[in-house]
C-alpha cells in the first residue's frame, strides 16, 4: 500500500488564535504551533494500515518553513518520507487554492490511499478531504471510525460514523478517506523514532517545482477574503427553569426560542 497522509501545522489548540493585523491571515508568530491534533489520528491509521499490509507512508504538508516540525513529528511516529510544499507565494492561500496545490503534489505520488483528518483545529473548514478527492478524481469516504483495506480486492471499507450507529461504506482504491478521532489512539513517538526522523527522506518543493504558477495561489488571488474576525462572545449565564408542573413545556419553549426544535 502506498499511503499518503495529509498533515497541517496549526496554532496550539489551547492558544488564543488571532489574525495578523497586516493581512488578516492566521497569526502564527505569537503562538506555539503544533500538528493539528486530529491529523495524529490520520497518521496513526496510516501507520496501522502499513503495519498490516506493508508499503509506505508519505506525509504531505503545505505550510511555512516552520511546518517542517510537524512533518518531523509524523516521521518520528513512523512515517517513511515526506513532501513539504513551502513557498512565500503560497502565503494566504484559501481552501480552494490549497487543495489545488496539495492535489498536484499528491498526484505525483500515485497513492493507493489518501488519509485526511475530518478538519483542522485552526479554521475548521472541514472541506479539504472533499476538495482533494474531487481534484484527484477519487472516491471519498468520510467520517471513518474504522478502516479496513483489502489490497487484493482493491477496495477500502469503512464504518462511517452516524448519530445513532454507523454505516458500512465501501469504495474502490485508490480513494480518499477522512477519519474521526474515535478511530484509534495515536502513538507517542519513540525516542528511536525521534532520532531516526531527521534521516528520513524529505522533499521540499517550491511553487514552481510543484508545477504550480504563483498566480494560482496566495492571498492576492484567493477566492475568499477575510474582512475581520471577532472573538467568540463570552458565555452567557444560563436560564434556570423552575418546574412547577410545567417544566417540560418550558424547556420545549426555550429550545424553540433557540431554534433547536
Amino acid at each position, binding site marked *: 500500500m502506498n499511503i499518503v497522509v495529509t498533515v497541517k501545522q496549526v496554532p496550539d489548540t489551547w492558544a488564543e488564535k488571532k489574525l495578523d493585523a497586516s493581512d488578516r491571515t492566521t497569526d502564527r508568530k505569537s503562538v506555539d504551533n503544533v500538528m493539528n491534533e486530529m491529523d495524529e489520528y490520520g497518521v496513526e491509521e496510516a501507520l496501522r494500515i502499513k503495519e498490516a499490509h506493508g508499503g509506505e507512508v508519505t506525509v504531505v504538508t503545505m505550510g511555512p518553513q516552520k511546518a517542517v516540525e510537524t512533518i*518531523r513529528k509524523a516521521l*518520528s511516529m513512523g512515517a517513511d518520507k515526506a513532501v513539504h510544499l513551502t513557498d512565500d507565494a503560497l502565503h494566504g492561500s484559501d481552501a480552494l487554492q490549497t487543495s489545488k496545490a496539495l492535489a498536484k503534489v499528491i498526484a505525483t505520488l500515485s497513492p493507493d490511499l489518501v488519509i485526511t483528518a475530518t478538519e483542522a483545529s485552526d479554521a475548521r473548514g472541514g472541506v479539504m478531504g472533499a476538495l482533494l478527492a474531487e481534484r484527484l478524481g477519487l472516491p471519498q469516504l468520510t467520517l471513518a471510525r474504522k478502516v479496513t483495506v483489502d489490497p487484493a480486492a482493491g477496495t477500502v471499507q469503512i464504518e462511517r460514523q452516524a448519530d445513532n450507529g454507523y454505516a458500512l461504506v465501501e469504495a474502490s482504491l485508490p480513494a480518499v478517506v477522512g477519519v474521526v478521532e474515535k478511530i484509534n489512539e495515536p502513538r507517542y513517538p519513540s*525516542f528511536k523514532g525521534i*532520532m531516526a526522523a531527521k534521516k528520513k527522506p524529505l522533499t521540499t518543493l517550491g511553487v514552481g517545482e510543484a508545477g504550480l504558477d504563483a498566480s494560482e495561489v496566495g492571498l492576492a488571488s484567493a477566492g475568499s477574503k477575510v474582512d475581520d474576525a471577532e472573538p467568540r462572545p463570552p458565555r452567557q449565564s444560563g436560564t434556570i427553569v423552575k418546574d412547577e408542573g410545567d417544566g417540560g413545556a418550558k424547556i420545549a419553549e426555550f429550545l424553540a426560542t433557540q431554534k433547536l426544535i
Partner: protein
Amino acid sequence: MLDSDFVEVVGAVRRFVRDRVVPLENEIEQRDEIPAAIREQAAGMGLFGFAIPEVYGGLGLSMSEEVRLVFELGWTTPSFRSMFGTNNGIAGHVLLEGATDAQKKEYLPRIAAGEWTASFALTEAEAGSDPSGLATTARRDGDGWVIEGSKRYITNAPVADVFMVFARTDPDAPAHKGITAFMVEAGTPGLSVGPRDHKMGQAGAWTADVYLDGVRVPASTLIGGEEGVGRGFATAMRCLAHGRIHIAALCVGMAQRLVEETVNFAAARQQGGHPIGEFQLIQGLIADSATDLYAARALVLDAAARFDDGTDTRVGPSAAKYFASEAVGRVADRAVQVHGGAGYIRGVPVERFYRDARLFRIYEGTSQIQQVIIARQLLREAADRAS
C-alpha cells in the same frame, strides 16, 4: 544526542506523562498497580533504557540530559518512574559499571527494551545504611556458585525477571572488599519473593523480600567475570552515585507539580470572600516552596554537569539528593497546609504526594548517610591537602 532531538524526546515524555499518566493517578493509587497499557507504551517509547548507552539499545543520555527528562517524570506518581527506574538506574548500572562486555551485550538490550525488569538487591534486614555488613553469602561449588541469604525492601522484586544480588564471597576480607555481585534470573531454583510490602505511599510501585535458599548459579552470572570477585561493593557505590542525582531530579519534578497544585489551589479557594492566595501568610508558604524548587533545580543541574565532566562524582550527587529530597518534603508539607482540610483527604493529589515524597529521604541513602558522605569526603580532601 543532538540537542534538537533531545528537546523532542523531553516534549514527548512531557505529553505522555501529562496526557496519559496524570489522568490515571487515582486509579493507580487505588489499585496499587500501573495499568499494563501504560507499561507497554512506556516500553515502546524507550523509557526503560534512556540511561543505557545506544550500543546496547538504549538512548545513552548524559546525566545532564537524564535529569531534564526525569524532571518531567517527577510530575506524576513516582510509581510510574519506579516501573523503569531500576532498569535505567541502580540495577541496569550494575551491568554498566561492573559487567564484562559479553554480559553487557547479552543482557543490557533486554533491559533497555523493557523486555526484562531488573531489580537491585543490596539491602538486608540487618544491613541497610551500611550495606558492607551484609550477611548473604556466595560460595564456590564446582564451576558455579551457591548463594544463601535474604534481601529486604527490593523494588520491583515481585515483577523482576532478573536480580542483581550482592553477596559476600570472602568472609576474611575487610567488610566492603569481600562482596561480589551476581545476576540471578527469576525462576532460578531456590530464589523466591515474599509478599508485597504494605508501604506508606508510592502505590503502584512494589517492594518485597527476596529469599535465596541455596541458589545455584553458573560462573557466567558473576558480574565482571572472575575479575569481578570482591568488586561488588565498589560497583554498588558507583551505581548509587548516579542514582542519587536521578532521585534528586525526581524530587525536583515532584516539587514542580506540588508548587503548581499549591498555587492553583490558593488562587481558586475562597475564604471570607477572598482567594486565600491574597493572604500574605499563604503567599509566604508559596514563596518558600517556589524558592526551594528553584534552589533544588539549580543544584541538580549543576551536580549533573559536574558528574558528566568528572569533576565531582561524590559530594555533588549526595548534596543534590540530600537537598532535593528534604526540599520536596518541605514543599509537600506546605502544599498540604495551603490545602487546609482538603490536604488531609484521600483523593486530593497533594495528600498522596505528601506520602510519596517521604521515601526520598530514606532510600538510596538516608539524609543522614548523605550528610556523612559529604562531610567525610570534604574532610578526607582536607587531610590529603595537609599531608
